[in-house]
């Protein structure tokens, strides 16, 4: 569910490394935020205690020393005043400090009836030392605001002790600190992560490329084993699988070769023997049947070998190719037409494309009376089109026609054989070329089969 929701986000990256890094970055940020909140709370508590404590201690001290108070020690700078009237306090009430002070008095074991605290604030003239300290820290000198806490404790009914203490008014710059710390953390965590990620991603990319290459060409170089242990194991397993598949495909080729040879030999024997048949018509039909069996055998072998062609790809003028194929049909007196075409160069295996085109033209002649061949040169693809004048194929059977061993029933030429491998073979050849076989009924009737090849 979550993964699906994430996928819908357009900015969410698909790459493994990018996803890990973004997740870690988010997790780090959340952790930092929680950390910061806890720190802030702790700090506030300490600050509160630090603000409360001097006042509390002075009052406690003063109350303890009351009986034998020596005058002169505090002199005229007496820090605690004893009052018999509730003082009128001005300034901002600080209930937080009041609560803390009450708790501290209770901890010490002093019974205090009530505590009141206010904060008075007034500008404090800059002292030379402060000035110096600020400059050293690289800050511009500015007026400090001085804040004083005035604490009044009613220690007996009708008797109050009052004291004042200084507190720093400036809040430390906590936000900047958080950002800075987070950035440093990012650098410490994400840089190695990036490195690990690349180490992970590169072999994975190689694996993907190798697998794709295998799918396209039926062979691929083994992938170099590197990266972290798990990935290396995956690579080893992949390479092992690759060579197993490779061995199986080779085995298949050898087997098909053997089958082909073993079937062709008795066919050849039969073909030779037909010549001793007296009846001319019978002999012709027999050799026709043998040729038919041989063609089917060839088709099956070609289809089984599709995708494992040893032919090299080369730049070919497909118009010239179509021309040559059509010319061969014309030599045999087949009803084929070729439209005049521009040069259309693509990188293909020419023998295979010849084969594919030949199959389409044969189909067109057998099922559609005539074949009209043309070449269309688009921006990114070239289409070799074979149109016929037959009944076409009903839409729901089009896909099926490209499957092996499917034949169009009810064709008028029932005796024209074939194993129904023609289109399957064409499709296999197209797939190997990164192209496609398209079938469509023409509006004016007849079927249009086209080989679509990347230009």
């Amino acid at each position, binding site marked *: 569910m979550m993964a699906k929701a994430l996928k819908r986000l357009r900015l969410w990256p698909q790459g493994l490394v990018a996803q890990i890094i973004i997740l870690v970055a988010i997790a780090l940020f959340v952790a930092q935020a929680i950390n910061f909140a806890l720190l802030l709370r702790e700090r506030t508590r300490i600050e509160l205690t630090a603000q409360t404590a001097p006042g509390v201690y002075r009052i406690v001290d003063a109350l303890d020393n009351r009986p034998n108070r020596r005058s002169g020690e505090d002199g005229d700078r007496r820090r605690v005043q004893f009052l018999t009237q509730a003082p009128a306090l001005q300034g901002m009430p600080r209930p937080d400090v009041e609560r803390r002070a009450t708790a501290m008095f209770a901890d010490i074991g002093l019974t205090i009836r009530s505590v009141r605290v206010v904060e008075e604030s007034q500008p404090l003239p800059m002292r030379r030392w402060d000035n110096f300290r600020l400059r050293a820290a690289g800050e511009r000198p500015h007026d400090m605001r001085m804040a004083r806490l005035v604490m009044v404790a009613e220690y007996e009914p009708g008797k109050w002790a009052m004291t004042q203490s200084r507190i720093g008014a400036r809040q430390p710059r906590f936000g900047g600190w958080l950002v800075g710390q987070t950035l440093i953390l990012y650098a410490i965590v994400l840089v190695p992560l990036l490195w690990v990620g690349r180490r992970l991603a590169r072999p994975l990319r190689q694996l993907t490329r190798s697998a794709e290459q295998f799918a396209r060409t039926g062979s691929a170089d083994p992938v170099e084993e590197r990266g972290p242990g798990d990935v290396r194991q995956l690579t080893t397993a992949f390479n092992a699988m690759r060579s197993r598949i490779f061995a199986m495909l080779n085995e298949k080729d050898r087997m098909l070769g053997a089958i082909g040879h073993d079937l062709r030999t008795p066919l050849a024997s039969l073909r030779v023997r037909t010549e001793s048949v007296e009846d001319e018509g019978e002999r012709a039909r027999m050799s026709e049947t043998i040729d038919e069996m041989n063609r089917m055998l060839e088709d099956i072998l070609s289809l089984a070998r599709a995708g494992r062609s*040893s032919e090299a790809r080369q730049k070919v003028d497909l118009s*010239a190719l179509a021309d040559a*194929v059509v010319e*061969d049909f014309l030599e045999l007196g087949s009803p084929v037409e070729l439209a005049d075409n521009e040069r259309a160069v693509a990188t293909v295996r020419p*023998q295979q494309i010849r084969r594919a085109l030949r199959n389409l033209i044969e189909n067109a002649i057998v099922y559609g009376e005539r074949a009209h061949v043309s070449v269309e040169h688009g921006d990114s693809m070239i289409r070799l089109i074979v149109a016929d004048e037959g009944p076409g194929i009903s839409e729901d059977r089009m896909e099926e026609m490209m499957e092996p061993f499917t034949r169009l029933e009810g064709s008028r030429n029932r005796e024209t054989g074939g194993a129904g491998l023609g289109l399957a073979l064409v499709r296999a050849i197209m797939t190997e070329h990164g192209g496609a076989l398209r079938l469509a009924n023409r509006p004016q009737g007849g079927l249009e089969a086209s080989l679509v090849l990347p230009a």
Partner: protein
Amino acid sequence: MSERPHLLLVDDERSIREPLAQYLVRNGFRVTAVENAAEARIRLNANAIDLVVLDIMMPGEDGLSLCRHIRETSEIPVILLTAKSEETDRIVGLEMGADDYVLKPFSPRELVARIKVIFRRVATGGQRVTAPDGATYAFAGWLLKTQERTLVDSEGVSLPLSTAEYNLMLAFTTRPNQVLSRDQLLDITQGREANAFDRAIDNQISRLRKKIEPDPKAPTLIKTVWGGGYTLSADVRKL
């Protein structure tokens, strides 16, 4: 050569060897049929053999090896029988010096026709056109690749040729700067006699010109020789 040419048929498959030998005998040849290369070597030494029909796939020494041996020691023509249709096997066979090959299952009539073509060539003192397959000929900025039956232009783009075009092109590139009459061209390319109305060669020539001449109306490569025929006016190198 005696009245009835003497063929040596080498095939390990009895089911092919025996009926084929009978068929060849019926078609006017003397036939010695053997089942392996070793026996074939003995017969080659003992008899005056005019042509060898040789199966490639045989247990023991295979047909290709025997073919090479024959070519090294004599001028006896060889036709290979092969069950494989893989392009490479044909080429290897022709590089081994075979004169021709037929694919199994072959029509015995076709085999006889090919044997006769070879005998006619030998009788008229024609050159053995060995191993065109696999070779590449270069002329006037073009390459003729015989393995793929394509022309390659100066930009490296292949122009596939039809069978007839290819045969004609090969006839020219293997005989550059020679005047070839229509009859000769027909004979070389299709192994048949021309009849008076046969315009096939002229059609093929004009098709070829469209493909390779810079200006097909004023041909500079395949020139018409008045009253004689055609000639490929270019230097050909075999690569």
